[in-house]
């Protein structure tokens, strides 16, 4: 990835200096072998009570960041602060951070209650208080009836709830979750997503959540940090991330996206004209292009493509398209088009009573509002 990409996570830098920051990464770097940086110059700041998701493909450095925060990896460079205190040299067990692991890591030789009681025991909390807290934590995840079971006697979803309860039972202010729902089936995942967010908000805890599932990231988080190549590519609330991706990686990684490549032909303030490689000309909104002649990838969401000419402004540019495939998906229709030399241009339309169903083979014209089409880095 080219170096000219602006470090958008840098937005946190200014926040880092504020007193409200609860978790802070400042210029953090991590290398395992002394040759390659797994995490390159990470800056991040979180206020108390935030649910932040680190999202990214595998190898993007998100889990390493989490492990550094938990204390299982040491930062090669930079400072990690918790509530204003640098924790670089504090061993994991003194950080007081709750953690939910990918495979739950419930201790197989202990019962559910013993698992939950463990963090309280090592904190030398009295027996009666312990029992009370364990039952309260089990109550939070509706698992009171399972206190005497062993982890192996529980289903995946139940184990996940217990892992969650165990991470919460000693009332940490910060909880880390490393792909906690990865091993569960879709339906259970959705239920638990909802429960985890609700619990986090009810308890007012700060959560750093790692996942590679973008739906999970979008539905659960207050803010999402998109990781790639050891950097935060964009740190933003889910809606902003989806609707206003700051670069082509984020645009492609979050949600479905149509990409067309071309050269900036004309700049018009908050919009621009892009000449595609096929020769067609389209309207776009410049995001990180600044001058005429620059190569760009324009990105447009499938649901923002319009094929009803009456809804477009009269001077809008349109593209000729051939319908290749029409897929009925229930709530929406998904239509694949051949546009400007690509065969995988997709549009989505709502299944409304008056919605047109395009037939394969027909020739149509498509267009969009300039602000829906973002001209990003090439």
């Amino acid at each position, binding site marked *: 990835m080219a170096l000219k990409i602006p470090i958008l996570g840098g937005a946190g830098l200014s926040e880092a200096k504020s007193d409200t920051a609860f978790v802070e990464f400042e210029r953090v770097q991590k290398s395992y072998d002394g040759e390659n940086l797994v995490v390159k110059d990470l800056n991040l700041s979180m206020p108390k009570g935030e649910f932040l998701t680190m999202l990214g493909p595998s190898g993007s450095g998100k889990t390493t960041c989490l492990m550094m925060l*938990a*204390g*299982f990896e040491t930062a090669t460079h930079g400072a990690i602060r918790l509530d204003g205190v640098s924790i670089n040299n504090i*061993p*994991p*067990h*003194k*950080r*007081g*951070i*709750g*953690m939910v*692991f*990918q*495979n739950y*890591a*419930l*201790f*197989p*030789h202990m019962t559910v209650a013993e698992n939950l009681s*463990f*963090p309280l025991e*090592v*904190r030398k909390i009295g027996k009666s208080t312990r029992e009370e807290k364990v039952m309260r934590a089990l109550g939070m995840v509706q698992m009171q009836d399972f206190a005497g079971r062993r982890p192996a006697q529980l289903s995946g979803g139940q184990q996940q709830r217990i892992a969650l309860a*165990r*991470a919460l039972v*000693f009332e940490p202010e910060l909880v*880390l979750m490393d792909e906690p729902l990865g091993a569960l089936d879709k339906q259970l995942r959705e239920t638990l997503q909802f429960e985890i967010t609700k619990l986090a908000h009810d308890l007012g805890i700060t959560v750093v959540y790692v996942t590679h599932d973008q739906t999970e990231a979008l539905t659960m988080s207050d803010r999402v940090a998109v990781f790639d190549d050891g950097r935060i590519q964009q740190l933003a609330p889910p809606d902003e991330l989806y609707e206003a991706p700051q670069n082509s990686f984020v645009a492609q990684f979050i949600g479905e996206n149509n990409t067309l490549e071309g050269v900036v032909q004309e700049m018009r303030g908050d919009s621009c004209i892009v000449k595609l490689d096929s020769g067609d000309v389209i309207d776009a909104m410049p995001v990180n292009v600044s001058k005429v002649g620059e190569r760009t990838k324009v990105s447009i969401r499938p649901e923002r493509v319009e094929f009803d000419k009456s809804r477009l402004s009269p001077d809008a540019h349109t593209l000729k398209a051939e319908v290749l495939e029409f897929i009925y998906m229930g709530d929406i229709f998904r239509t694949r088009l051949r546009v400007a030399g690509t065969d995988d241009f997709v549009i989505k339309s709502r299944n409304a009573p008056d919605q047109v169903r395009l037939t394969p083979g027909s020739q149509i014209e498509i267009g969009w509002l300039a602000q829906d089409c973002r001209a990003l880095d090439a």
Partner: protein
Amino acid sequence: MAEQVLAADGTPLKASLNRALRRQKMRALVLILPLLLFILATFIYPIGQMLFRSVENGIVSETIPRTVVALDDWDTQENDLPPATVFDALAKDLAVAVELKEHTRLGSRLNYELSGISSLFRKTGRRVDDIGEIYTDQLVALDPAWEDPATWVTLMADPDWIAAQAAWDGEGDEPAFVVSATAIDMLPQTADIYADFARVIQSGDNDSPTEEEPWHIVSLALYQDLIASPSVDIPGPLAGLVSTAAAAAPSFETEDVIATFTDVDDDWQNPEVWETIYTYSPAYTNGYFLNAIDLQKTTDGIEWQPENEQVYLTLFLRTMIMSMTITISCILLGYPVAWMLANLPARKANLLMILVLLPFWTSLLVRTSAWKVLLQNQGVINDLLVWVGFIADDNRLALINNATGTVIAMTHILLPFMILPLYSVMQTIPISYLRAAKSLGATNWTAFWRVYFPQSVPGIGAGSILVFILSIGYYITPEIVGGTKGVFISNRIAYHISSSLNWGLAAALGAILLAIVLALYWAYDRIVGIDNVKLGG
């Protein structure tokens, strides 16, 4: 009761399923059959045989059957010599046994119980064929026909056998001698011993009773028969010969068999000898087992062996204690290594694994001998310690030919058997457990002790069982480096198998060892649970 489920063709589903599975089972059986047969033939059966020897004691009643019967009437509590009939019986038994060269074997067997019996039997064996000569001489003096083998055959043999023997063409074996019913009826003792004589002559010497003069002991038996029934009336041509002898018998000069035995060796006057024979006359005995735990059988019941002969309980105890020491040493040394193996990156772990397995590439004997070089008084380790100055030159450590040597060498040799099961169990414990524990606030030690260690216990169990069972039966290493203070019970078993040839005692010791191992296994199952033993994934 639920209704029986039927298959599509109306047969009960269970039967149908069984039929379907039978083929599979048969195939599985065929696959293991060669190994099963091999093990049965070369392992299970011989071991069963061997263990059977620990109670089997047929040799006494087979070799001296008459004596065993005669001793039945002997009152052991009197602390007297047995009656003359017993001596007579023994003389007859020995006459047969000497011819078959079995008396020395019996002597060796009884020598395990009372030393000296072996030579007593050998000495007596050399003289036993003279017993009864005095009667032969007097019979022959009475009538030279007594010197003729044919006379004896006519007197003793079944008419059918005589006919068959006459018809025999000399090819192949002579028909097996059959004693006549008349002889058994009228001259029972003579018939009894003559039958043995004929059998020995035929089978042992490949000769014929028709050509061999009977042993003198037969004359003794005849004399006893004639004294017992003076009016004996043998039918047939020899009636006169026998009745003449019967008439003369009371005036025969007699031989005192007891005196003859005593003349051979005074030990025959020792009631202990007779008590030993009496005690070990049954076909099965618990004597070997009693000996194996330092007890002995006497006519007064079961008693401790004399203090200076008690070795086996000490040896068993030492074997157990040293095996435990070795097992614990293996755990202490092997656990960290297994941990390293399980947690290092694959490439380094493989190298380390090769180092762990390296000892398997050299012979056990070589490794043990190497320890001999290292540990001896002038050996490498002592030299090093002296050079460093830890010990004085005249105060070198005794590291070999004692228990220390055995523990050191065997810990080294058995270490891989501890590391491998530990490693394979530790490999299945994800690092995330430790991380989880630490994130929950546990220190490194608490995380290890409360979370990691309990999960590695099955590996410790498996390794300990392996190491303990292997060491409890170890032989070569204690033999080479153990001296006298560091040998195991197995060395004693080997000694009885190959040197003293007291296989019965060896078998009893082996059976006890086996029982101990099984008992420990059972105890382990009860305490830890055998399901908790894991040799891998």
